[in-house]
């Protein structure tokens, strides 16, 4: 187990190193930050001093090493636009995004799992067909478009909920402590949950259909267990592990998709920050965001693989490529 763990850890570190090179090169190619940084009226002398201060006159590989060295110390530099350390800038936006993504995942799970089980339990029923149609719509329709429709109906037409922004924040920088906070959170969370909702319905239905046809469900029924117990205990238990896996893996992509929802609803999270930095050519913020997101993904994948290795010894043996 320790060898497996160390092997995976080394692989994750290698991936991070490769990604840091790619991100650095990619962002480097975007444009000359000097034009953003320096007042056009600055004298050539001031210009040169700034170029030297940021190390932009060094060869590319030296710039990378310098960058890698500071990143390993947790220093991503200062934002060109906000003039504050990038790491604290991104971390200050983190609670908003985490709150949004978590609420969205919870909505998707609480609605998607029961509906998926029903659709898998009664695959031929009319209601099941309707559920499946909803799931197709859920991941066919672009997220930003659904967001606009939600705003049109609930904010413009009925005026029930605000059209964007975030409510007052309390402890931990979260806005879930007040009812007003929830009125702001509800629409974006619903919007973000839709894709995962459609995905979960399909996944759970497929799992349920498979388990329903298996031996142990037939035996459970033959024992005379009530249907509620058959579904609630045996089916749920057997589809539980894949659902948890997907939940873990999809959480990362929900964070990435929050980019769209945050822009639509003017939600002050990390996603909105990255879009703003791309438009403003704020290089340090882009680099830091991308590296942090990749790190998050690598960690989640690592965690899921380790859990597998823990649960299923076979994975450990064939784990090494």
């Amino acid at each position, binding site marked *: 187990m320790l060898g497996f763990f160390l092997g995976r850890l080394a692989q994750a570190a290698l991936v991070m190193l490769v990604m840091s090179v790619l991100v650095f090169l990619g962002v480097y190619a975007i444009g000359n930050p000097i034009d953003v940084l320096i007042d056009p009226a600055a004298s050539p002398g001031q210009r040169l001093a700034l170029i030297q201060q940021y190390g932009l006159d060094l060869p590319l590989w030296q710039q990378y090493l310098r960058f890698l060295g500071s990143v390993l110390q947790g220093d991503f530099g200062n934002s060109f636009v906000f003039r504050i350390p990038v790491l604290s800038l991104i971390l200050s936006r983190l609670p908003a995004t985490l709150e949004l993504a978590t609420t969205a995942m919870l909505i998707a799970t609480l609605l998607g799992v029961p509906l998926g089980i029903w659709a898998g339990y009664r695959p031929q029923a009319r209601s099941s067909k309707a559920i499946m149609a909803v799931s197709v719509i859920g991941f066919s329709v*672009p997220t930003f*478009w659904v967001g*606009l*429709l939600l705003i049109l109906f609930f904010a413009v037409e009925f005026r029930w909920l605000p059209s964007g922004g975030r409510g007052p924040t309390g402890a931990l920088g979260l806005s879930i402590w007040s009812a007003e906070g929830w009125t702001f959170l509800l629409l974006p969370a619903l919007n973000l949950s839709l894709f995962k909702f459609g995905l979960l319905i399909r996944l759970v239905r497929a799992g349920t259909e498979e388990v329903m046809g298996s031996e142990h469900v037939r035996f459970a029924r033959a024992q005379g267990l009530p249907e509620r117990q058959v579904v609630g205990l045996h089916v749920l238990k057997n589809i539980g592990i894949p659902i948890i896996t997907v939940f873990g893996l999809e959480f990362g992509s929900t964070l990435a998709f929050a980019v769209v929802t945050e*822009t639509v609803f003017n939600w002050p999270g990390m996603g909105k920050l990255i879009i703003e930095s791309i438009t403003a050519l704020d290089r340090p913020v882009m680099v830091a965001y991308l590296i942090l997101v990749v790190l998050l993904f690598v960690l989640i994948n690592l965690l899921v693989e380790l859990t597998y290795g823990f649960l299923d010894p076979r994975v450990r043996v064939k784990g090494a490529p």
Partner: protein
Amino acid sequence: MNATALREGWAEYRRSPVAVLALLVVVAVVALALLAPWIAPQDPYNQAGLDLFDARLPPGETGSGGYVHWLGTDNAGRDLLSAILYGLRLSLTISVTAGLVALVVGAAIGLAAAYYGGWFGALAMRVVDLQLSLPAILLALVMVAMLGQGVPQLMLALIAAQYAYFARTAFGAASAERRKDYIEAALSTPLSGGRVLLRHLLPNTLPPLIVVVTVQIATAISLEATLSFLGLGLPITRPSLGLLIANGFQFMLSGRYWISVYPGIALMLTVLAINLVGDQLRQVLNPRRRR
């Protein structure tokens, strides 16, 4: 694939009325996009032909051009029906081209990895898996940020974000076929390896790839619209559907819903119809269903 198989496949496909309807919608959308320059009342790319007096006309009003704007006009005085038709044309061109190129690139990588195996196959699939673990929107976002705005850049971003799906599918299907006797038999004849790959391995991995290509084209349309909506896609002088929607968003809050809503409906119908067709194709082409 011969005529009998096609007929049988169609018989199977026809069983779902929803899927047939979706196929009709797809055909209609493609036809409208192809014919856009001839059937659109106005050329939305011709800036000189736009009249600001016609801006934000509600649906059904007659503008200074003397014809009825059935879907209204946008804030620059563009006839929305024309803009939607041209937008569809642009969105479809970008996503179909990107989808097909991604298919060729991805299938080549996947097939080669399955056929040759070894360190090359392992490395190629490792990269593909790594990429698949990252969401496509993120990759496309980074690519567009790096490459800048424009049609070729957008296509490149979509290809880079999507080829991995084809590579993974082709690799899976080809690895399963590779072990079968007919491939071994073909390899024992003096046929060249390339010929076995193209004439024997490739045709048998096509069904799953066809399903993936439909789904990926729908995803590409959606992604392109999303990127344009975020302001990272195409310039406003050549509006795609996503940009039309983004553009109308600011007027939505003041009740001028049509600028955003009609392009949105066109986008939604297109993506939904393609996905439904893909869904049914998956059922028809599923090897477990074949008798």
